[in-house]
């Protein structure tokens, strides 16, 4: 611990000039030391300034931003005083960045090998003859298969996980002493994320690198970091060891954040953190968190608390950190399970098959038609009235495709979709009558894309009300206001445009629009994935309340297993468009498992430094499902043999309503 700091950020404030000429700070008075061989996590919600801080470590500021005060030192060099040439030598050489979205951070017109060689040419003393072998070595080090072929590829020819590995290899090319990681695993599948984090941990340990790990994901932070810094509204509010911050956070915000994350070992709904962080430039009286804090009193709203060191070693910006235990960390609330007596079927999927490939006239003319396997195949599920069915799986598992087929946006190739047990729905949405359309509503992942930016909230809600119920004038407005009340937004939102709302508010409007149709089935497509964790908890709670009031049926698609566990009654696990396992939520999340479910659950990262992920399957990305046999055959760690390649696994009854599609006998699963 006595070793001097390697990266020193001191009293750093960064801001920009607003159009009216005011200086708007984004980071305020942030100080942080990182030693060699140490990894520090930087946590905060979107807009908290965490990425800005990481880039400042490289002496880089996005267009418009400037340093208001403070200093950044790297290895005793003042990064803010360096000229362009010196910065070029340090960047990528001594400190390297691993960016958030590698898909967009690799130059699309250059082959992967060329981009890596460029980094070598800039930052290593190697003879240019040895570049190629060094590149292969780097790619092997990040565990990319077939490096010789990889260097010939263009970035878009790689999967997300492979792109991220290339970005890591590129960062390692200059043999840096420090790594800055800006959300390096956000947007990757759970298994891929877990593998990348293990790789980063190993690399940091082997090379004794200093790491600054920026993320909103406390699970990833818990896995990689020794110390954690929590940012709120551009200020450090809590700083301590990973065990302290994630185990018993002494700041109300950190505590709220932690309890808003759904966990695998919990059956209750996550607690929501009400309110929203102040926008940059908003006047803050006293503590920035005071208006969202249950401990807040008069002192908190009048004077801003200093960052104080506690006896236990943490630094915390709160007057009441000794009262922290008064804030409950676990909600008692459990998702409202449907009444067990109800057996009416809301929707049934019978042997549903969907294929995206439609051979065009010309390809059939020139090519012999070879039918690729269906994207989604042989899906049989009944969804009971009032239940929530969770659909989980990695990207490419066909979960969103199934939703689109139910909504009528894609025509299935075969199979039936039955509504209310009797009505067979037409494949195309144009052929469905208004009554059936009204009964099924869809909520999309990203409200920025699903709400028309030129319509006010009132206009957005009026559309379904006018279309399905013919409402007009005052009644229409009254009904819209009621809907907004039900999603915990007031009638004063009616005249606002989506751009004037926060992410969580937009998603509430999207939910209100779905419920305006008074639907029987609501299809939720990754509805919380684009939201911050605290907002996610609020949206989950809202969905659950609406379900209790309306007796709605949900089909809830998500890649996040903990979220699905919190809200679902039953879960279906999908791989490559085929069902692996279906059953009541508690049975699926417990042994016996389908090998794929086992791999998925093992890879989930929980915000607890003591939990180690279990990586059972490789994180290879498959582009298309196998033509026959079990969909998981190519990655399965427990593959039996040729039977898995030739025969579709049978659906074995494990418990009541719990079915696993696998060749492995029940008692060995």
């Amino acid at each position: 611990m006595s070793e001097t700091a390697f990266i020193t950020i001191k009293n750093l404030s960064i801001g920009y000039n607003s159009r009216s000429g005011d200086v708007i700070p984004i980071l305020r008075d942030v100080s942080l030391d990182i030693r060699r061989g140490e990894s520090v996590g930087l946590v905060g919600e979107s807009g908290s300034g965490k990425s800005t801080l990481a880039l400042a470590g490289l002496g880089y500021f996005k267009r418009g931003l400037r340093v208001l005060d403070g200093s950044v030192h790297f290895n005793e060099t003042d990064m803010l005083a360096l000229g362009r040439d010196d910065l070029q030598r340090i960047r990528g050489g001594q400190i390297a960045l691993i960016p958030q979205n590698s898909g967009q951070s690799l130059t699309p017109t250059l082959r992967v090998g060329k981009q890596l060689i460029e980094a070598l040419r800039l930052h290593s003393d190697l003879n240019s003859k040895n570049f190629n072998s060094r590149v292969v070595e780097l790619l092997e080090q990040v565990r990319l298969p077939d490096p010789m072929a990889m260097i010939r590829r263009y970035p878009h020819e790689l999967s997300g996980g492979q792109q991220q590995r290339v970005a890591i290899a590129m960062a390692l090319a200059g043999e840096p002493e420090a790594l800055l990681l800006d959300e390096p695993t956000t947007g990757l599948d759970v298994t891929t994320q877990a593998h990348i984090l293990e790789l980063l941990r190993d690399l940091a340990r082997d090379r004794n690198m200093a790491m600054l790990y920026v993320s909103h994901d406390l699970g990833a932070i818990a896995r990689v970091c020794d110390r954690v810094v929590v940012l709120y509204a551009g200020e450090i509010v809590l700083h301590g060891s990973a065990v302290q911050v994630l185990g018993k956070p002494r700041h109300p915000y950190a505590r709220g954040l932690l309890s808003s994350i759904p966990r695998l070992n919990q059956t209750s709904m996550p607690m929501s953190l009400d309110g929203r962080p102040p926008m940059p430039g908003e006047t803050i009286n006293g503590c920035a968190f005071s208006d969202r804090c249950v401990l807040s009193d008069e002192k908190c709203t009048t004077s801003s608390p200093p960052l104080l060191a506690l006896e236990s070693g943490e630094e915390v910006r709160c007057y009441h950190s000794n009262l922290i235990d008064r804030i409950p960390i676990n909600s008692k609330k459990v998702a409202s399970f449907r009444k067990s007596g109800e057996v009416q079927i809301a929707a049934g999927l019978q042997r549903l098959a969907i294929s995206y490939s439609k051979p065009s006239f010309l390809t059939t003319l020139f090519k012999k038609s070879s039918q690729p396997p269906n994207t989604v195949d042989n899906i049989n599920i009944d969804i009971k009235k009032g239940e929530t069915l969770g659909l989980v799986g990695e990207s490419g598992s066909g979960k969103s495709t199934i939703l689109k087929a139910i909504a009528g946006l894609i025509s299935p190739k075969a199979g039936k979709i039955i509504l209310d047990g009797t009505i067979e729905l037409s494949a195309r949405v144009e052929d469905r009558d208004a009554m059936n359309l009204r009964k099924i509503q869809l909520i999309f992942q990203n409200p920025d894309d699903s709400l028309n930016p030129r319509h006010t909230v009132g206009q957005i809600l009026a559309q379904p009300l006018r279309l399905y119920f013919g409402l007009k004038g005052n009644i229409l407005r009254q009904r819209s206001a009621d809907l907004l009340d039900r999603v915990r937004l007031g009638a004063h939102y009616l005249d606002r445009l989506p751009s004037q709302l926060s992410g969580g508010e937009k998603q509430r409007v999207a939910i209100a629009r779905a419920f305006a149709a008074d639907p029987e089935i609501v299809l939720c497509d990754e509805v919380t994935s684009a939201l911050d964790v605290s907002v996610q908890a609020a949206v989950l709670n809202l969905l659950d309340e609406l379900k209790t009031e309306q007796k709605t049926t949900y089909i809830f698609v998500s890649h996040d297993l903990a979220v699905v566990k919190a809200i679902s009654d039953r879960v279906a696990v999908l791989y490559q468009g085929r069902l692996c396992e279906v059953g009541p939520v508690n049975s699926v999340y417990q042994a016996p498992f389908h090998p794929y479910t086992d791999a998925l659950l093992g890879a989930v990262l929980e915000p607890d430094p003591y939990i180690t992920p279990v990586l059972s399957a490789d994180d290879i990305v498959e582009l298309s499902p196998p033509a026959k046999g079990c969909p998981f055959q190519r990655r399965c760690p427990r593959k039996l043999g040729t039977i898995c390649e030739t025969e579709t696994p049978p659906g074995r009854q494990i418990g009541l309503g719990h079915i696993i599609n696998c060749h492995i006998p029940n008692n060995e699963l």
Partner: protein
Amino acid sequence: MFLMLIRRIFLGMATIGLVSVIIFSGVELLPGDACTQFLAEDQADREMLAQCREDLDLNRPALDRFSEWSGNAILGDFGVAADGITKISTIVGDRLKNSLLLAFCSLVVGVPIALFLGVISGLWRDRLPDLFASTLAIFAMTVPEFVSATLLILVFSIWLEWLPGIVLTSAGAPASEFFPEILLPVVVLSLVMCAHILRMVRSSVIEVLASDYVQMATLKGVPYWQMVFRHALPNALLPAINVVALTIAWLLGGVVVIEVVFNYPGLGRLMIDSISDRNLPVVQSIALIVASVYVCVNLAADLLTMVANPKLRTIYSRS
């Protein structure tokens, strides 16, 4: 990849075929025919008309004539003009050659300047070089061609007497004889063309400079100019290919105003003259040629984009 090439060529040919059908039927549907227009209607007696129709072979069914016309057109023979004597391929051929000359010179002058200025103003966004180039571009775009052409004639050929103001060379003369008469039209066309391409390149460069991969290259320690030439420009210039292609097509068929102002014997002016003379066979042929130019140039641009853009290459080789 090869399949897709064949497919695109096939589609291009189908497009030209469709265009030829539309042109031919359009001409057929017009009241009267080549003979009624050639022989002023009131004077023409029935015999002369019949004789003319016999000469021009107009009595056969339309389908027969279309297949013959299109068949010959493929071989470069467009038949005879409305006077029944002049071969269309000779008139149009000379004009096409002149238009190609004008287009080629304008491209050689205009495109490099446009790309250069576009890149400069993108890199120095909102600073002096950008303000200068962008203002000039807006000026060149908003001032109508005939105004800038007239101004240039006024300055360079009337006041300074450096260059001839109009083209007096006959349509059939060899290319070399058009110099220096061709210079002023080339300058005007380059100006207009430059403005469009410059604006497009500028916004494309700005967009690419704000991209994640340019930021990443900078943070990897790539020196500024290396970043510009290796990471930014290859991506920023991709959309320019299509714009240049459309410009080529425009230069060959759509610069009538300039041709008229400078008395340049190009394809556009022949088209206008033929329309006012109601010389329908010639109009028909020019329309077909211009349509084919559009199709070919676009095909070439698409192929070139594909060569330059690895992403598109993958998409096409998969489909």
